[in-house]
């Protein structure tokens, strides 16, 4: 009798717990993969494909499922790698390729034939134009991913290094080789 009571009691508890869990999984259901979202949020969103995946979100999905390594994002560099490794709880890995300095695509308009192939290739819709019309790159939207260079049949797209402007200048760390050259010793001039 006692055994029957114990079995019923435990079985009943297990059933109740199961129902609670089943309800909770419905009520608190999260759409999508939260880990993928969090990894996607630390990626630089250049959509450049240097990781071997067609964009940042596919790479984030691959990392979240454990399929891809954490060190594949080239433009994200060490900072993105450390953030992903931290999220995934795996040891950090050296980023193999060094990121190129920030670049912008530039279309030499007098050579453009208006084929729209670069417009189709741009992952962030940063190129405007229409068939048989000149195309141009919207500077403020270009991520410098270089994906538009390859499809151009007349090779009229250049990747230019992003101009350094005073507003975006920041102090370099103390002790690091300073890029600022002092004028005091060489070409001191008196106006």
């Amino acid at each position: 009798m006692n055994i029957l009571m114990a079995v019923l009691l435990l079985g009943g508890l297990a059933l109740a717990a199961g129902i609670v869990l089943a309800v909770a999984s419905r009520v608190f259901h999260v759409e999508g993969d939260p880990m993928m979202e969090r990894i996607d949020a630390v990626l630089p969103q250049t959509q450049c494909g240097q990781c071997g995946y067609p964009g940042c979100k596919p790479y984030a999905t691959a990392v979240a499922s454990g399929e891809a390594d954490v060190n594949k994002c080239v433009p994200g560099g060490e900072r993105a790698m450390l953030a992903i490794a931290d999220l995934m709880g795996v040891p950090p890995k050296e980023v193999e390729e060094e990121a190129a300095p920030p670049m912008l695509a530039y279309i030499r308009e007098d050579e453009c034939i208006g084929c729209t192939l670069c417009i189709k290739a741009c992952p962030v819709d940063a190129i405007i134009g229409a068939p048989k019309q000149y195309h141009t790159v919207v500077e403020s939207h270009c991520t410098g991913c270089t994906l538009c260079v390859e499809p151009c049949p007349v090779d009229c797209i250049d990747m230019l290094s992003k101009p350094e402007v005073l507003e975006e200048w920041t102090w370099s760390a103390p002790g690091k080789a300073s890029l600022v050259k002092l004028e005091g010793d060489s070409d001191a001039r008196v106006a």
Partner: protein
Amino acid sequence: MPGLLERLGGLFGGGVDLRSLISPGGFPGGVHPAQMKITAASPIVQSPLPPQLILPLKQHIGQICIPIVEVGDHVLRGQKVARSQGYVSAPVHAPTSGTVLAIEEHAVPHPSGMGRQCMIIEPDGLDEADQSMPSLCDYLDEDPAIIRERIRLSGIVGLGGAVFPTFIKMLRDQRHPIETVILNGVECEPFLTCDHRVMLEHGDSVVRGLNVIMHAVAAKGGIIAIEDNKPDAVDAMREAIARAGFEANIEVRVLPTRYPQGGEKQLIQAVTGRQVPAGKLPLHIGVICQNVGTAKAIHDAVCMGKPLTERVVTISGDAVPHPANICARIGTPMPFLLAQCGLRDLSGVRLIHGGPMMGERLPRMNVPMVKSTNGILAMRAESLYSENAQEEPCIRCGHCVEVCPVGLVPNELAWHCRNDQFDRGQEYDLFDCIECGCCSYVCPSHIPLVHYFRYAKGQVAHIEKERAFAELSKARSEARDNRLAREQAERAARRSKVRKSGAAEAAADASDDTEAGTSGAESGEKAS
């Protein structure tokens, strides 16, 4: 409070008196660097006009101005040559009459050594003034909004060095009524004496300028704060107040000399005993603070109709044979000013823009003086501490903690900044640092603490900017993916429709196949 501090001090081995960290009625910490005010007794001399004036189109915190004159145009002194865009901005005026030679990029006084859009003006030597702005002598009868607009149009910014557009502070706000206007005549930086000389020689303008500010913000009281190392300035200001008959509502407050008492929040704490909370403005506690030079510029703009085209600069430093206080036109090249003080050969010399504690070393020599230039120090490279000191490990002496005027823990903060742990740095209130340099000054291991904080602040701003750009790119990329998916779905729908209708028509009648053929070709073309 003192009892608690005593007990806390006891916990740390008894030797530390934490009460010494909070001085009564003042801000904590601070240092007493050698004053080096060698130009304190030199009267202001007027600089001649240079052969060319280089006028940067941005000399304030905020957005760059847009030129409104063209190359080749003749301009008059005080004529507006670039208009402000956006709210936080101040227009630029021609410093003298002459011809606009070029509008191009030129080196500006900035630690990066980079250039910015500048207007180059060749003076014609006549110095004709633009008389179009009438003076508002009876400013007490004017609407404060008109005075505020006049200050905005005159291009006046904070001349203490922060160059924040002044008109923004001059707001009558019902939620934050201003009780007191504090004029900052502290000038706590070593070497600099321009504010000191302005108080001595233009005392009446300063007092009247303060009165204009008080009227504009409807403040009842005005306080002119001066450190006790300038007794002559104290007397001069008291006399000027008596001459103007403002004894009832303007007073001079003499403060014990301590660096960085001239910092806005530090001065307010020293004068009123109240702290401006982190992330808030002085107006939130009913105070506004202006530099004495700004007050003079306000007087000139309102009472004399003269926009900001000149200012007083201290030229000093151990490489300068004849240090001086010079009143020069904005845009005068620095080598031209140094030559007037006897320094012509700039080899082996380092230029510092501002004072020795907070100023920035300039990598380029041929730069103009701007609205923020309160001092130009020419130092011999061998006497420059930052170039010759070797950074050594922190010995945890805690001097930096004792002297920090905002109560930060600079050694811990620098540790996080050095290791690029900017989140931890922000937990240690990185952005409350005013970069006064007290911690670097006292550090026995010569750690450039402020440099670490400037580095970290820049990196945080950079990371935030990248983050914002990534968000934008992500949104654009997602919108594109959605559009492609939608287009594909539409194409698929059209194709299946064509196939269905084609099949139906073929079953009904084989004669009507031309239409299906064309639409099939059309959808095929689109699919490619």
